[in-house]
């Protein structure tokens, strides 16, 4: 598994697709109502943070879900926004989301073979 993180609109997906040659048809996009392909067929999960946000809104456990997906699909590429670099929100649900996503990304980064942070479309390999 590989993890690609960065801020909003930093060109993360394009960076990954250009680098790997993976076609867009193999991208599961959590921000789309029709995600593009099934999670088990996906080579890439884009907007992973939205997937986590939706899970929390539905009262489901995103940690357990991603653990299972990775067993079936260990070569997955995960792309996520970084959302923790701001003022801690007054809203408890938003705080929970930031905190859970942050910890989840730490865990994924620990397991990942490669972690890159993308800024202005350029990847910086941090693991």
């Amino acid at each position, binding site marked *: 598994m590989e993890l690609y993180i960065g801020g909003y609109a930093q060109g993360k997906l394009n960076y990954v697709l250009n680098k790997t040659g993976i076609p867009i048809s193999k991208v599961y996009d959590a921000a789309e109502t029709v995600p593009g392909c099934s999670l088990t067929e996906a080579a890439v999960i884009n907007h992973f943070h939205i997937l986590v946000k939706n899970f929390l809104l539905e009262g489901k456990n995103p940690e357990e879900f991603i653990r299972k997906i990775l067993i079936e699909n260990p070569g997955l590429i995960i792309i996520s926004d970084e959302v*923790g670099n*701001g*003022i801690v929100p007054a809203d408890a649900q938003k*705080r929970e989301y*930031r905190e859970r996503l942050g910890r989840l990304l730490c865990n*994924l*980064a620990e397991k990942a073979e490669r972690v890159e942070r993308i800024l202005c479309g350029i990847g910086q390999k941090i693991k």
Partner: protein
Amino acid sequence: MTVLITGGSGSGKSAYAEKTAVSLAGQSPLYYLATMKIYDDEGRKKVHRHRDLRAGKGFTTIEQPTDLPKAVTGLSRGKGTVLLECLSNLVANEMFPGEEICSGVEVEQRVCRGICLLAQKAEHLVIVTNNVFEDGIRYEDTTCAYMEALGRVNTFAAGIADSVVEVVVGISVPVKGKLL
């Protein structure tokens, strides 16, 4: 030496900071300078999580939610390594002590004086701060004043630090000096 560690919420900066403090300390005393004021269950949980992380590592805890220079008197076991966590709480506590709001410049001076004193008195100082600056939201004036004060305190701390590290998804990225 002085090390400044920054990162966002849930970035793993605390765990990294502890590891750094423990390895710097060796056999010498380890102090944990706690700045968080507890208001509710969420705060209590946070403190417990951090306590569990620190358990068994030999930290003496000094509660210092405000008035950082005073923390020096708490170094009861002699010179050692101080882990100060974190500047974002400290600046908030100093700026918003109750109903009134303190001036950002005064708070900045007080906190920076405390950092200098600790850096002098301790053998090693590990400071944790929080990257609250990159969500692109324009907050109301009070919050902006807080962000500006914290930004200046961070800049000061980074200036005197031998090493500045950003923790990203649990991975340390050097900003100034070398990683330990």
